[in-house]
C-alpha cells in the first residue's frame, strides 16, 4: 500500500528534532554504549534517492524518544536512510533505484539476526541473544550497509547475478564502505573518531568497527563467527589471496572465500587509503575529513562504473581508483597506492604502471661479502633504477623441502632469484623499504600507522660505488 505524506506533515517534521545513534547501539564488544545524537527529523520522500518505510506503516510523531522504543527505532532508521541517500545521491546525480522511484524499507520483517537487500527493498529483523532482543534496523551501520547494496545495484546492476566470489565479496565491501562514508557525514562522529585515533585514522575505532551490537548478538551463540569487537572491522591485516586458494568458510580470525569474509580485504585497503588521503591533506581536522570522505566516494563510484566485470574485480576497481585519485587532490594517489599494495589488492609493479611507465637507469653489481649477491631486475617498481644488488640466501640446500600448498603436496620451491625478489617485494608491500635518496621517492609505499618521531624502516636502498644495494637498517617486532 502506498503511504501518503502530506506537504504539511513533511514541513512539520523537518522543523523537529529526533534522537538516534551516531553509528550503532553497541560499543566495542558490548551491546550497549552507543553514542546518542540529536538530528533534524528527516524527510524520506525527498530526492535524491527517496526511500519509504513500509513497516511500520505509520510514522510516529517526530520528537525525541527514548532508546528501546519503537518510535526511537523508526527515527534512527529514517535518519540513517536519509543520510545515506543524501551522501550517495550527491555523488550520483540522476541515478534512480533499481527497484523503482522509492526504495521500500521494512524495519521488522521477522526473526533473524540479519538484514537484506533483495531488489524489492531493504528488510530488517529482530532477534534475541543473551536474553536481549535487538533490531538490526536500529543500527545506522547496518542500515547504511544495506542501502549501499541498493546503491551499487543501481550503478552496476550486472553485479547482481554474477557468479563470482570476488564480485559478491565486493558488493559486501561496498556495503561496509557505505556505512563508513555515511557515518563520516555526521560532524559529531568526525570529531569523535579524530579524537579517538589521534588523527591517525587507520586505527581500530568507532568508525572502523561496524555493527558492534549485531556482532555482539551473533557472538553469543557463535563466538568465532564474527570479529571479537564488532561484526567486521575495517582495520584488519588481511592480504589478498586468490579466492581459489582459500577455504569456503572459517572463523572470523581467518580469511575464507565466503563473500563477507573475503570482503574484508578490499574494505581494509579502502579504509587505509582513506586514512592516507587524510594524512595528505593540509590538516587532519573535521573539515578535511569531510572533504576526504566525499572525495573518496566520488573516486569510488567513478572507478566502479569504469571497472570491467571480471573475476579479479578488486584489482580492476583499485586500478581505476588509482587513475582517478590525483585528479581529486594531489597526494591521494600515493596514499591509495600504498594502501592497495599493502593489502595485496594490486601488486607494486602493477601499481606503478597505472597509468604510465617510468624510465630507468642502469647500475652495476657490488662485490659479495658474506652471502652471495644476486642482481635483481626491478624496473617495474618505479624506483628509477633497472636493478639492485641483494644478498641472497643462495647457499646449497641440505634438504629438498618446501612448505605445504593449500591444496595438495608442496609448493614449488622458488629459485634464489625468485626468493630474493619475493623478499624485496614483500618489503615494499609492507612499507618497510626506505627508498629516498637513491631512488624515486614516489615509488615508496608508506604505512599510515608508522611513527612520526622516528624511522621504522627495516631496509634501505644504499648507493655503494656504482651499485644500489639493499641493506638492512634494523630488526623490529612491531606490526
Amino acid at each position: 500500500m502506498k503511504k501518503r505524506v502530506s506537504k504539511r506533515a513533511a514541513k512539520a517534521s523537518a522543523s523537529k528534532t529526533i534522537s538516534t545513534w551516531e553509528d550503532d547501539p553497541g560499543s566495542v564488544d558490548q551491546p550497549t554504549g552507543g553514542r546518542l545524537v540529536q538530528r533534524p527529523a528527516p524527510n524520506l520522500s525527498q530526492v535524491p534517492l527517496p526511500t519509504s518505510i513500509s513497516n511500520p506503516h505509520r510514522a510516529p510523531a517526530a520528537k525525541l524518544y527514548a532508546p528501546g522504543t519503537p518510535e526511537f527505532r523508526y527515527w534512527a532508521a529514517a535518519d540513517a536512510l536519509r543520510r545515506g541517500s543524501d551522501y550517495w545521491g550527491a555523488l550520483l546525480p540522476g541515478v534512480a533505484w533499481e527497484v523503482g522511484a522509492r526504495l521500500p524499507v521494512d524495519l521488522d520483517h521477522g526473526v533473524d539476526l540479519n538484514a537484506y537487500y533483495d531488489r524489492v527493498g531493504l528488510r530488517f529483523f529482530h532477534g534475541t541473544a543473551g536474553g536481549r532482543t535487538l533490531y538490526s534496523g536500529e543500527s545506522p551501520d547496518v542500515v547504511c550497509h544495506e542501502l549501499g547494496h541498493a546503491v551499487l545495484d543501481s550503478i552496476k546492476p550486472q553485479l547482481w547475478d554474477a557468479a563470482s566470489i570476488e564480485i559478491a565479496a565486493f558488493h559486501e565491501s561496498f556495503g561496509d564502505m557505505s556505512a563508513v562514508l555515511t557515518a563520516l557525514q555526521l560532524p559529531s562522529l568526525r570529531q569523535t573518531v579524530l579524537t579517538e585515533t589521534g588523527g591517525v585514522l587507520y586505527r581500530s575505532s568507532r568508525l572502523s568497527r561496524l555493527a558492534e551490537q549485531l556482532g555482539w548478538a551473533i557472538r553469543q551463540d557463535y563466538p568465532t563467527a564474527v570479529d571479537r569487537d564488532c561484526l567486521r572491522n575495517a582495520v584488519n591485516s588481511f592480504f589478498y589471496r586468490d579466492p581459489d586458494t582459500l577455504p569456503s568458510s572459517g572463523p572470523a580470525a581467518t580469511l575464507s572465500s565466503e563473500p563477507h569474509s573475503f570482503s574484508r580485504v578490499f574494505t581494509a585497503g579502502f579504509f587505509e587509503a582513506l586514512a592516507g588521503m587524510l594524512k595528505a591533506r593540509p590538516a587532519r581536522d573535521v573539515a578535511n575529513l569531510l572533504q576526504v570522505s566525499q572525495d573518496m566516494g566520488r573516486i569510488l563510484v567513478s572507478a566502479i562504473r569504469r571497472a570491467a566485470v571480471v573475476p579479479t574485480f578488486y584489482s580492476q576497481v583499485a586500478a581505476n581508483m588509482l587513475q582517478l585519485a590525483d585528479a581529486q587532490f594531489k597526494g591521494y594517489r600515493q596514499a591509495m597506492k600504498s594502501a592497495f599494495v599493502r593489502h595485496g589488492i594490486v601488486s607494486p609493479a602493477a601499481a606503478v604502471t597505472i597509468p604510465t611507465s617510468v624510465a630507468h637507469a642502469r647500475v652495476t653489481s657490488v662485490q659479495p661479502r658474506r652471502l652471495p649477491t644476486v642482481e635483481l631486475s626491478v624496473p617495474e617498481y618505479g624506483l628509477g633504477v633497472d636493478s639492485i644488488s641483494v644478498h641472497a640466501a643462495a647457499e646449497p640446500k641440505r634438504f629438498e623441502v618446501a612448505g605445504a600448498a593449500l591444496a595438495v603436496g608442496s609448493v614449488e620451491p622458488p629459485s634464489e632469484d625468485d626468493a630474493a625478489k619475493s623478499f624485496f617485494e614483500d618489503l615494499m608491500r609492507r612499507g618497510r623499504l626506505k627508498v629516498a635518496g637513491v631512488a624515486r621517492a614516489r615509488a615508496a609505499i608508506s604505512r599510515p600507522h608508522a611513527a612520526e618521531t622516528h624511522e621504522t624502516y627495516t631496509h634501505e636502498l644504499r648507493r655503494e660505488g656504482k651499485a644500489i644495494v639493499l641493506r638492512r637498517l634494523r630488526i623490529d617486532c612491531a606490526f
Partner: protein
Amino acid sequence: MRRRKAGVADEKNLRAALAKRDLELVSVDERSPDGTIVATANRLHVVPDPDGKPLYAPIPVTLRIQCDERGNVRTVAGETPEAAAIADAARFVKSLADNRQLAAGEGPVPPGATHQVEIDAKGRRILRRRRFSAL
C-alpha cells in the same frame, strides 16, 4: 518525434534475440551509428552442482553485437566467457553450498540464504540471487 526503428534497436527485442543464444541482457552500454551495440549480459553456463545435477550459473560477458539495416542481430562477439570466469563460477557455487547460502526448493528464502535454484521454461536449473545479506 522520430519513430523508433524496429528490431533490436528496441531493447525488448534485443533481449529476446540474445535469450535464444542463452544470453541474458543486463544493460546496453553503447550504440554506434554503424549498428554496433556494446552490451553487458550474463551467459548461462553449466557448472558442477553439489547435488550432482546440471546447474546453470550466470557469468558476466561483454558483447559486441552487429545488427543489419533492419536492426536485427547479425553477429554476436564475446558471448563465450573466459575459462577463468567459468572456474570462478564453479567455485562460487561450491562456496554458496558450503555456507548454506544456496536454498533448496522454491518458496520463501530461508534465513542466511542468498541464492535459489529456479527452473526456467526449458526445464533447466538456473542459479538466481534473491538478496544480499548483512552477514
